[in-house]
Each structure stands twice: as C-alpha cells, then as structure tokens.
C-alpha cells in the first residue's frame, strides 16, 4: 500500500533567456514512493533536484512529464480548486522559518489561517490552536505573539504546528532543520519523530545532510543532478551503499571524532587512488554497525 507515488517525474524550467533560451532540467525521470506512516529521506547536494521534487508534490513546481499519484489519485495536473482539497492531506514545513511565517501575523493568525480556509468555525479553530501549540511544545501564551519575536527553533515549531493543523497524512519537510543551531536541530528532529509516532503522519524529508536523514528516515533516496541514483532502506543505503556517489556523500560528511575523521580521510584518499577500478566493492565503515536492526 502506498500513499504517494512518483513515477518518472521530469521538471524542466525555461532558461533565463526567455522562451528561446535553453531549458534547465531540475528533475530528470525520478520514481519513488512513500507509504503511510513512513519517512522517506531525499538526499542530495545543491542542484540535485531534491527540493523541486518536494515542490512538485505540493503543486508548487510545474510537472513537465511523469505522474504523481496520491492515494491512488493523480494529482500532478490538478487545477487550483482540486489542489485546495488536498490541503488537508498534504502539508509542508519549509527550510527557512524566517521567511515561511508572515512576520506581520501573530502565531494564532498563522495557525488559524489554514483551518478557516478549510471551513472551520472561529471558535473551533481557536481551540485547535491550543491543541497544536501543545503538540509542538510551545507555551499557550505564544499564540498572541508575532512570529518575528521568536528564535529560529521556535519559529520552526510554529511552522510544524501549521503543517499539522489539518491533520495531514503526508508532510513534505524541505530542509526543515538546516537553518537551525545544532542543539535546536536535535530537539526539532526528535519532535518530528515523536509526532510521527503519535499521529502516524508520513514524511517526505528533504535534506542535504545525510547524517540527519539517517536518523529520521525509514527509506532513503539519493539524488544527483536531477536523477535518482539509489533508493532503498535507510540501513542499506547509509551503510552498504550500492552507488559510488552515495558512498562519496557518506565519506565526505564529517563526524565529530578526530580519530574517525582521520580514518575516513584515509578511506577517501584510497578511493580516489582506486578510481581506476570502479567495480571494487564499496564499504563505508570497517566498524560493525551497532544501530542496524537485524
């Protein structure tokens, strides 16, 4: 059973030089799926198309070809009205909590907005706000404050609360942690996991940071320049990657341990020297993997 199915998705943007300019292919034939209650991590570097895939699912990026099915229904060519019906089922948390919340609105106004648009009464919407603030561990008093009065981590909690307002089945998280400090990052990540355990929401978790993706994802998709290079279970992709690019990504992302870093540098050096024999097996770690579920 799948919730979201992306099939051979292509997203092209017209080039900068007007209609005759070259087109830019952001996503090039990507297929993947998300099951209910599942987190699928989407990893890649800048320009890999990971954010564009998330935006295409949300209807914010043009789908050039391919299909996006949600709950068995095709949604990639929906008009605005049809799209609006989906708002209670698919939601979003954006990267930058500074620009994703209107600075001129109070937290309550921000949280009430999607509820009112979905036809909730004013009173019911207000009650729901109290509920939502509790879910993201913000104090009740936060409702009357402006978003701009909060720190990055708190703003991101508000953004998460807004995404949860209509009790969606899928939330697209577009780099939701990359604008946050390390300690805040960890807490917000834990919050996202807790919410998933509690409500059973599914996440499409877009990030450049494979270390974070590993913590929250059940399955991981690796993208390179618009193409999907690898898609598999989190444990498989992040410990015994099938593709060299995934291995590069894993080895390049530094760990907070000088001794391990020295080892990994040596490994990277060795791989560079061995570039002539690409068929040699790739293993990222010599140490046994303690976190892997048997």
């Amino acid at each position, binding site marked *: 059973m799948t919730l979201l199915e992306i099939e051979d998705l292509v997203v092209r943007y017209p080039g900068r030089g007007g209609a005759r300019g070259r087109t830019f292919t952001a996503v090039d034939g990507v297929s993947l799926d998300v099951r209910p*209650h599942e987190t699928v991590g989407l990893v890649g570097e800048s320009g890999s198309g990971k954010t564009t895939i998330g935006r295409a699912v949300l209807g914010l990026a043009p789908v050039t070809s391919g299909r996006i099915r949600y709950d068995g229904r095709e949604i990639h060519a929906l008009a605005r009205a049809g799209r609006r019906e989906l708002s209670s089922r698919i939601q979003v948390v954006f990267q930058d909590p500074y620009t994703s919340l209107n600075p*001129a609105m109070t937290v309550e106004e921000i949280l009430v907005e999607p509820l009112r648009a979905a036809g*909730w009464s004013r009173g*019911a919407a207000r009650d729901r706000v109290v509920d939502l603030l509790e879910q993201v561990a913000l104090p009740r008093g936060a409702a009357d404050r402006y978003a701009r009065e909060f*720190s990055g981590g708190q703003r991101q909690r508000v953004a998460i609360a807004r995404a949860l307002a209509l009790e969606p089945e899928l939330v697209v998280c577009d780099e939701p942690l990359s604008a946050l400090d390390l300690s805040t990052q960890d807490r917000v990540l834990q919050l996202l996991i807790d919410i998933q355990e509690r409500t059973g929401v599914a996440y499409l978790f877009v990030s450049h940071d494979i270390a974070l993706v590993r913590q929250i994802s059940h399955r991981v998709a690796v993208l390179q320049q618009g193409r999907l290079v690898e898609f598999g279970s989190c444990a498989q992709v992040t*410990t015994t990657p099938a593709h060299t690019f995934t291995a590069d*990504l894993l080895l390049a992302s530094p760990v907070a*341990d*000088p001794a391990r870093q020295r080892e990994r540098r040596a490994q990277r050096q060795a791989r560079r020297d061995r570039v002539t024999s690409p068929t040699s097996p790739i293993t990222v770690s010599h140490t046994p993997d303690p976190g892997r579920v048997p």
Partner: protein
Amino acid sequence: MSAEVVTATPDLTTRPSTLRIILRNPLSRTGVVLLGLVLIALVAAVVIDWVAPDAAWKADLYQLNAAPGTDGHLLGTDSGGRDVLVRLVVATRATMFAGVIALVVAVLLGVPGGLISGYYGGKVDLVLDWLSSLAMSLPSIVVLLAIISSLGTSMWISMTTLGCMMAPAVFRLLRAQVHAVRNELYVDAARVAGLSDARIISRHVLRVVRGPLVLMISVLSGVAITVQTGLDFLGLGDSTTITWGGMLSEGFAAMTLNRVLFIWPGLAMALTVAAFFLVASGARDALQGIDGGSTTAPPAPERIRLTKVPTSQSSATPAEDEVLAVRGLVIGYPSGDGLVEVVHGADLTLRKGRTLGLVGESGSGKSQTAFAVLHLLPRQARLSGGEIWLDGTDLLALPRRERERRVRSAIAYVPQEPMSNLDPTFTIGYQLTEPLRARGVGRKAARERATALLTRTGIRDPERVMASYPHQISGGMAQRVLIAGALSTDPHVLIADEPTTALDVTVQAEILDLLRGLQAEFGMSILLVSHDLGVIADLCDDVAVMREGQVVEAATAENFFAHPRHEYSRMLLAAVPAEHEVRAEYVADRSVRQDAAPREKHS
C-alpha cells in the same frame, strides 16, 4: 534550554493605533495641522460658494494691487482689485478636485494592474509592463498638451489623462512589491494551506504593499496638484474656474506691479503638497512599525546584558609560540540608551602552526570575535575592553593606522559565503591582483602570482578563471578563489569564518583538504570559526567553545571530543547525530498509538 525560552520585547504586544503613531512624530504632526488647514479652506470654499457665490469676483476698483492687510483685505488684492484670500480659499476646491480625479484614475488603473501583473506574471504581465513603459516614454506634459489641443481644456479630461500618465508609477511599484511577496515562502505555505488567491492577496500581499502605496499616493497627489497648477499657469486650464494655477499666472503677469501676488497661490500649493507628504510619510512609518520592516531579518540579540568592563587578568606578554592571543575581549553595540554587549571578555590562544577551532551556536559572538581580530567590525561596534596580541604586540594599544597595517600584513580572511564575497562587477583576475598592486607589485608579476595561487588551490585552468566574472563560476571554485586571495598577501595567520558552511559536503571535504595542505606547506596558524563539530574534528588541533559571548572551554581537540569538561560542550556533542544510529525499521501495519491526539474533526 535558554534558547527555547520565549523572548520578546514587551512593547510589541501592546499595539497603539496607527493615528497615534503618526502623531508621535513632530513632522507628521505639522503635516496633520497643515492638512487640517486645507480641509478648513475646502469647507470655507463650499460655504462661500453657497452664501456669496460671487465673492471671489467682486472687484474693489479703488484698491488695485493693494498690499496685504489693507482695508480688510488680509492678503491684499490682485490687479483686478479682487480679494486674494477669498480667491485662494475658493480655488482650493477646484484644485483638490482635480487632484482627486487624477489620483482615482491612477489608483484604479495601477493597483489592479500591479496586483495581477505581480501575482500571476505571464503574458498579462508582459502586456501591462510594455504599456507602462510606453506611457513612461512620453513626457506627461506633452501628452496633456496634445489632449488639450484635440479635446479642449476641460479639467475632467486633462486630469483623467494625467491619471493615466501617473498609473505606471503605481503599477510598477505594486508589481515589484507583489512580485517580491509572491516569492516569499509564507505565500507558498498559504497556497499549500489551501487559501484561495483572493484570500492570499488580501491577507498577505496587501499588508506588505499598503505602506509604500500610501506614500506613493501622497507623492502622486502632490504631482497631480503641481501639474494641474502648472497647466493653468501655462494658460491651458479651464478659464471659468478659479484655481491656484490661474492665480499664479495672473500674479506672474503682474509681477512688475505687484511682486508678492504670485507668492500666495504658490505658498498654498506648496503647503498642501507638504501636508500630504508629511502625513503619508508618518503613516508609512506607522504601518511599517506594525508590520515589522524586513521579513528576513533575524531577531534582535535576545539577551541584553550590560557588564562592567572586566579588568584583564594577565596583561603579561603572551608566550613565544602564541601567534595570536585574545584576552578579556569585550564588544558592544550602541542601542537606544545603552550598549548591548555581544562579547563579554573572551579569551583565545592560537599557537604557531596549529589550527584552533572556535565553536559556538548563532549569537555566541564567535564571528564578532574573529572580526575584532581582523579589524573588520562594523563602524558602530565598540571594542570596550581587552587585548588582542599579535606576534607579541597588543594591537589595541596601537594607533588605528598602525594596527591596520599590522593586521593586513599578517592576517588573512576566508569568508563564509563564497559568492557574496566577490565583487560581481570585476573579473576574478582583477580582484586577485588588486591587493598585490596596492602593495606595489607590478602588473605582470601580480598576474603571475595570482595564476600560481589559483593553480595551488586546485583550479585547473587558472587563465580562464582569471578572465571570468564571479557569476560565471561555481561556489566551490569561488571559495578556492577566495582562499587564493587570502594567501596572496603572504599571511602567517588565516582566519576562516565558516569557510565550508555554504558548500556541498563533497566540496567541503575538498576545501578542508586544501586548507590542511596549505597549512602544512606555508606553516600558517589557522583560526577556524565553525558551528559544525564534524568540520572542527576534521581540521583542528585545538578547540575553544563560545557561548553567550564567553569562551566556556578551551582544550586540545583530542581532549575536547573525548572528555568535554563544560556542561555546554557535553550538550553540544550529545546533539551531534550519532554516526550509526538509524531509524527503527518501518512497520507497515502499525497502528497509531493510543495516546495519540484525537483525530475527530471539528467543524
């Protein structure tokens, strides 16, 4: 955690009314008073028209060009012996009316056009934009003359035309503003939240647009009044109505007989225009005060604390191998009636040939400390205490010029964001050779050195890169260029402020390798500012942890990662994602836990 405590400045929660904010500013108060005068004149004009319709035409033939104050004529009489004040008051009505027509037309055309163009873009935008540039290519006065010649001098026609000519200004303003808002993430979020376009425009777009629009309308009302007056002054107005322009024209014609006659209508017009402008400026500021200026600005420093300048513990000269030593550094910024301190007595020691990692979260003061050492703090910053020892000399004890000279010859800087740190208008080659040329190196020698440095930083075709502009190269390459630029001044200390944060991890690894290689080759000492403990672990020999403007722990890298002493350091290390921790396996038929939030729908 302190970072998670809700912090707020209290005056933001109590919102005074817009009018009260306007009245707080003395200039806007003046504007309100002037506007009141204009309104009184307007009412008076209507009353005069009703009570004594021919008062403005009544000529006192014994009192031609009377001086102000003569015989009950407060502002004197004109060359026809008519009372200037009465005429001035009566003229208010026609002039205001003219302004209103032009303004209404401009707003009716410009606002919807700008909203549609900015929000939807596409073909409509192309057409409207082209029409507006057509209208802007025609001087409005020429069009007005052409219209008047073909359709006559009716004020309705000329002011409608003027409104059409002013509409592009409104259109352009709105289009640009709406376009900017359109690309804000919060508008995307509103779309995903299921809001209709009409609702998005009214709730999100108009709020941002209204401040600038108010100001624009006031400016245009000034323009409308001055153009209308100007037309009458040229003798192309509606000769049957009394206007300030007509009076100005009469005053000008009679200048040799009555020098001050033209002053009165001129003054009336100037004060009216000023009134609109001052009130609108106040209103704009008030609206912005409510809306909050920029949407992207990070919150103000959360903790405001004023500490006494700590007396430096040890003012002894640093040891021989301590290339750079910071002692008790205090940095503050003036704010309101005091100084907001961002660094309170930081201590750092960088030893010869080693790499010191300065770790901290945002707002910890790590970058401020680095910029203080680099003598690159913003102008407003106050270095109110401490010492910065470079090669055995306290820089802060030196005169400014000498300090600058020493810092520039010894320390180089590698910035965080590669793209924004290259001047977009000059070639890479120019930017690399400029510092060398400023130090007296010849053109050819400078080019050769720059090429060599680019090659050393791993750029394969340095000649092509030298000839490129910044927007033509990738971020990773730009960072190599910046490192080459830092090396060009032969520094023995390198300060790198988050040098890899903006880069992809694979590029980051290469840049870190490059820095490591360069250090080994040139024997530099490196101060690496970073929030990323992985990067610190990769490159650093020593670590200093900063928190809230103070260094809370300094240790060797081995010790720091293996046995962090300070509670904050331990918390930071605990937050790092564990290398092998993965999410528990996905269970397909897992049911939602019982204690989950209720899912019944309210309505």
